[in-house]
């Protein structure tokens, strides 16, 4: 089966894969950060005390690499102030108070072949769609590649343990996935559409195949982390290597997460902005599951919805356990990049030992780098050597630290090293 070199096999723990997506009734108060994406934060377009309607824009994207944000509930703007943020620590956010039950967004109609690419891009941008796989890169930017694109790939790997949001999305929203793919293909002028899915989700592949009428290729991929990393996915599907320092478009490819494809469909067909997303809540909670959550919902609210905490939770992670971000508090809101919230039991004491040069990190690195050198050079503050060891090519997938028998927090040293290398430029 197609795959890539290196990688690891963590226990998948996908206990929520049979839990249908469940809509969460919105909280009375949402906190919508103005920066939920890669790129420039957007600027507030509402004022304190102003009444807003569900779906109304709260922040305007002024820069090219940016995305507007919208309110998921109708109500009143209570404040525009710095607020805890699950990725940035703290960021300016618009707080809206209101509430009530939410009905489904009215469904529109669209023929993807009749729309101009520019129209698709504009609707996607206005809807504030960003990559929902985690990195939250503004989708409209990806739809305006300066290079010619022949293939659009939908990423349905979901190789992170615990997470099942994409799996459920493919299963329950297969037609919207396919329509989103066709819209993206239309926007970038690509002929070929592919969906890569890890082979442990045969039901999702079956649903996608049925919905696609054979127009797109649904390809099973080896179950191996990080199969869903963009570069690994392109390698597995097309045997093309994104050049070092490059982007998928350098090999004629645009990659979108399956959840993003659904968001594109909703944006273009229904005019619905990105105001909710599917979040896997897993680990030590009463009712783990896949929840359709309004953006801006506090983690603490979602925790209660999911049945409350069980005993012994010591770590809360946004995202998957391999690349997710540990949270200091449950006051943070769900943002566009929140693919999951994990409530994890006791963390093993990770006392850092000496590197025994076992080379497991080297053997498992999907980017074929030498993480052992990154640690050595970062500890020795040899920032010049770090760059020539290709530290900037690292995708921070964490495979190296996962297998390290000395429990060295390799990703920590890599993040530090990258920061230093960037700051010295």
């Amino acid at each position, binding site marked *: 089966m197609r795959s890539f*070199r290196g990688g*690891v096999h*963590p226990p998948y723990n996908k206990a929520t894969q049979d839990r249908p997506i469940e809509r969460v009734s919105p909280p009375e108060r949402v906190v919508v950060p103005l920066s939920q994406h890669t790129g420039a934060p957007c600027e507030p377009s509402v004022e304190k005390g102003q009444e807003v309607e569900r779906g109304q824009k709260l922040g305007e994207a002024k820069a090219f690499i940016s995305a507007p944000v919208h309110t998921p509930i109708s109500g009143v703007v209570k404040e525009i102030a710095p607020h805890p943020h699950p990725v940035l620590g703290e960021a300016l956010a618009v707080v809206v108070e209101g509430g009530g039950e939410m009905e489904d967004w009215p469904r529109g109609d669209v023929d993807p072949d009749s729309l101009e690419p520019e129209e698709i891009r504009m609707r996607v941008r206005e809807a504030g769609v960003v990559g929902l796989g985690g990195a939250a890169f503004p989708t409209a930017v990806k739809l305006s590649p300066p290079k010619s694109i022949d293939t659009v790939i939908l990423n349905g790997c979901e190789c992170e*343990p615990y997470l099942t949001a994409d799996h459920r999305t493919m299963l329950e929203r297969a037609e919207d996935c396919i329509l989103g793919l066709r819209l993206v293909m239309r926007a970038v002028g690509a002929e070929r559409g592919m969906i890569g899915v890890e082979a442990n989700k045969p039901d999702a592949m079956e649903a996608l195949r049925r919905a696609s009428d054979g127009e797109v290729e649904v390809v099973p991929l080896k179950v191996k982390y990080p199969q869903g990393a963009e570069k690994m996915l392109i390698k597995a599907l097309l045997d093309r*290597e*994104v*050049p*070092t*320092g*490059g982007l998928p478009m350098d090999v004629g490819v645009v990659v979108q997460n399956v959840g993003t494809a659904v968001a594109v469909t909703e944006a273009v067909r229904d005019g619905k902005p990105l105001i909710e997303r599917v979040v896997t809540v897993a680990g030590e909670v009463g009712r783990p599951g896949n929840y359709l959550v309004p953006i801006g919902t506090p983690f603490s609210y979602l925790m209660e919805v999911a049945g409350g905490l069980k005993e012994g*939770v*010591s*770590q*809360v*992670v946004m995202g998957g*356990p*391999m*690349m*997710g*971000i*540990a*949270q*200091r*508090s*449950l006051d943070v809101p769900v943002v566009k990049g929140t693919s999951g919230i*994990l409530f*994890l039991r006791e*963390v093993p004491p*990770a006392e850092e*030992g*000496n*590197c*025994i*040069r*076992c*080379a*497991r990190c*080297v*053997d498992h690195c*999907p*980017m*074929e*780098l*030498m993480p*052992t050198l990154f640690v050595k050079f970062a500890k020795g503050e040899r920032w010049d050597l770090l760059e020539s*060891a*290709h530290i900037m*090519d690292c995708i*921070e997938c*964490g495979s190296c*630290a*996962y*297998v*390290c*028998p*000395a429990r060295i*927090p390799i*990703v*920590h040293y890599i*993040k530090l090293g990258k920061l230093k290398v960037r700051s010295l430029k």
Partner: protein
Amino acid sequence: MEGRLVVAVSPHIRAEMDTRRVMMGVIVSLVPGIAVGVWFFRWHALALLASCLAETLSAEALACILRRKPSTLGDLSAAVTGVLLAMVLPPTLPFWAAFLGGVVAVTVGKQVFGGLGQNIFNPALVGRAFLMAAFPVLMTRWVAPGPKVVTAATPLALMKFDHRATPLLDLLVGKVGGCMGETSALALLIGGLFLVLKGYADWRIPLSYLGTVAMLGSIPWAFRPDLYPSPMFHLLAGGLMLGAWFMATDPVTTPVTKVGRYMFGIGAGVLVVIIRLWGGLPEGVMYSILLMNAVTPLIDRYTVPVPFGGKR
């Protein structure tokens, strides 16, 4: 619950294999070899094992105290060094000499460099090399296996100096003179395969090491089988099995790159054959590994792989 949340960098899950388990795996893989040693050399083997272990462990503990570091006995690396050292010493070596070897192995071999992972040379082999230099007579006094102490030459010495080949079956079983834990090629092979198949060590070095010895050793034998040993004899005699599976796989002192590991194995294999056939000593495994340890940093430097997406 706030304030009690653990905040750490990703990944938030770890594979089960840690340093201690790796070392434990090495010790378990050595059990067949030790068992045969104890079977053939009886209390000599046990005494040797006990004195080496006692000394490597106490030297490690003392070094940690002197360096004001938390004790590293728990990582079991000193235990591995002790067991390996005992296995590469003559069974009748006096306990005080084994003791000295243990001190040198742990302190000079490892701790002076900064402890586990920092040393250049295989610690057990440093201890053995020291004893070879300091007590050459004691270190070349061999006994035949069995309850009675009868002096005997090693198969490699018999071959080198008398051109007498030992039956391969004896080499496999270990019913020959030699170091405590090196005599049974079969027991070491079983342990070595376990070590590699369970993922405690990489297969590349043993494969290229043994392969090189067999191929290179077969060339002179093809021309003069009366004068030179067969490749099978090369593989089964002396310390090669022990060295290839358990010393040349020490991750600390061998290359981290895959290409580098092949180079290490091939280089060590060439050295073994050269020393055995044309050197002054009957056996060359120890020096082959120590010499390749010395060039390991160089190998690592020149075998850095091209990253994904780089120009190949």
